[in-house]
């Protein structure tokens, strides 16, 4: 056998795809259009740098009024006033997580390819969930405030929708990836679909489910800062009020507080996950 014969039997190198260079070029063009003065937002770098001097006042402003100093001078005596709204935020997050995650668990099994009873349920469920996820949490809050009035209840409802959307998506994708061997074993033993899901699938995804639930709890604490702005209660209400009054040093107390709570919850969830998985 000659070397030439060998070379003929090898496959020809496929031609390089045009998709990658085309993609890069279109990305650059779109970005330029978005930045340009004619078609886009007209980003001016000089103006941007000029405005940076305002940061000095924001951070270090000195004033005899304790509430009226810069962000780097947190007005700690303001802290007790934030206790009640912070507690409200925590309560909203706990209630919304409990209800949202509780609803998400059974729903997730209906919209996973592995455990769905039939294609109709699967497709209908997936469509409804895309709609639920497409609506941002703040829009839910606005809708429920319009329907129910200002307060924590519309905030909780908004968070529940948000949580169901997130947990069902993550959990159903986890269910898609489970070991299907035990499912076959369950079917072969004459167990019903619900029984098979409970004993062949749930033990496999339970640690993930707990992790996702803790994750959305954390997201709820963060989201409630935004929801408060539109009137859905919690720490966001205080955040927005102090912002409107330019009380940077009070605002800074709230920012630090939210930060600490999110970090704490993060630590607790890491610890719990490690014990569960």
């Amino acid at each position, binding site marked *: 056998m000659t070397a030439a014969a060998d070379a003929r039997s090898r496959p020809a190198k496929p031609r390089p795809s045009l998709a990658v260079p085309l993609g890069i070029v279109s990305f650059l063009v779109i970005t330029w259009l978005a930045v340009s003065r004619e078609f886009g937002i007209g980003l001016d770098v000089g103006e941007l740098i000029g405005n940076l001097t305002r940061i000095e006042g924001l951070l270090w402003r000195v004033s005899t009024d304790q509430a009226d100093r810069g962000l780097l001078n947190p007005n700690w005596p303001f802290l007790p006033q934030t206790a009640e709204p912070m507690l409200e935020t925590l309560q909203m997050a706990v209630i919304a997580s409990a209800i949202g995650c509780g609803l998400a668990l059974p729903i997730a099994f209906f919209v996973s390819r592995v455990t769905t009873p039939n294609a109709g349920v699967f497709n209908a469920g997936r469509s409804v969930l895309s709609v639920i996820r497409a609506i941002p949490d703040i829009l839910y809050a606005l809708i429920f405030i319009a329907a129910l009035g200002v307060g924590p209840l519309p905030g909780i409802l908004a968070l529940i929708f948000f949580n169901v959307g997130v947990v069902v998506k993550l959990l159903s994708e986890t269910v898609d990836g489970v070991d299907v061997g035990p499912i076959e074993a369950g079917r072969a033993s004459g167990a019903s679909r619900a*029984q098979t899901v409970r004993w062949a699938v749930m033990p496999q995804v339970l640690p993930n489910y707990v992790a996702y639930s803790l994750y959305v709890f954390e997201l709820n604490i963060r989201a409630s800062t935004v929801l408060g702005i539109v009137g859905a209660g919690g720490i966001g209400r205080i955040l927005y009020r102090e912002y409107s009054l330019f009380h940077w040093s009070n605002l800074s107390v709230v920012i630090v507080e939210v930060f600490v709570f999110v970090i704490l919850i993060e630590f607790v969830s890491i610890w719990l996950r490690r014990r569960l998985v």
Partner: protein
Amino acid sequence: MIRFQNASVTYPGGVHALRHVTLEIPAGQLMVIVGLSGAGKSTLIRAINGLVPLTDGDVIVDGVSVRSAKAGDLRRLRSKIGMIFQTFNLVKRTTVLNNVLMGRLHATGTARSLLGWYRPADVEIAMQALERVDIVEKAYVRAANLSGGQQQRVGIARALAQEPRFLLADEPVASLDPPTSHVVMRDLQRINRDLGITTIVNLHFLDLAKVYGERIIGLRAGELVYDGNAAHADEHVFRDIYGRSLTADDVLEAKPVV
């Protein structure tokens, strides 16, 4: 009794996995199926409990037609047929006992089973099944922490917990080392003899088939090409089934550990 009547399975891709198989398996028999991979061994086994739907003919199990059984009838039928798998198919993240209790789900109501409130009698059946394969001391251990051989015995216990009349074993020792293979095969043989459970085992290794089988059937390209007493199956027979000369890969070679 299990009766194959001209049973055929053609997969959606057009593969004829089983061609016009007619076969009778009397109650209490231990029958071994041999054949190359792709010969239709797994399909034949799964046709018995309806995990693979027939495309022609029928399989009659205890007087029930698998092909025309409705969902509820099929579940009732499956509850009488235990199944053991090559890769054990255990839920690794939960305890051995929870795995074995899956064999009692068919006898447990929906609400009870969703809450995990198994009746004490069902837990007792599961424990006895574990005792029968000599692994009851691992009842509260997570399945992931067991060796392959131990996991397969848990798989057998799960099937036994159904209190089945039939036992299907799909390549039960293909993932195990030779000494462990003999332990598992002896467990199956003992269960077949002591409990009178009709047992059907897919095997790749010819020496195991001869040692443990009462009757051997051979499949080639979905067709039944041999059916006879295990004692009469010699090298020529196997050559015929395999359609080629035998190699060292076709035998397990390790002697049973006594």
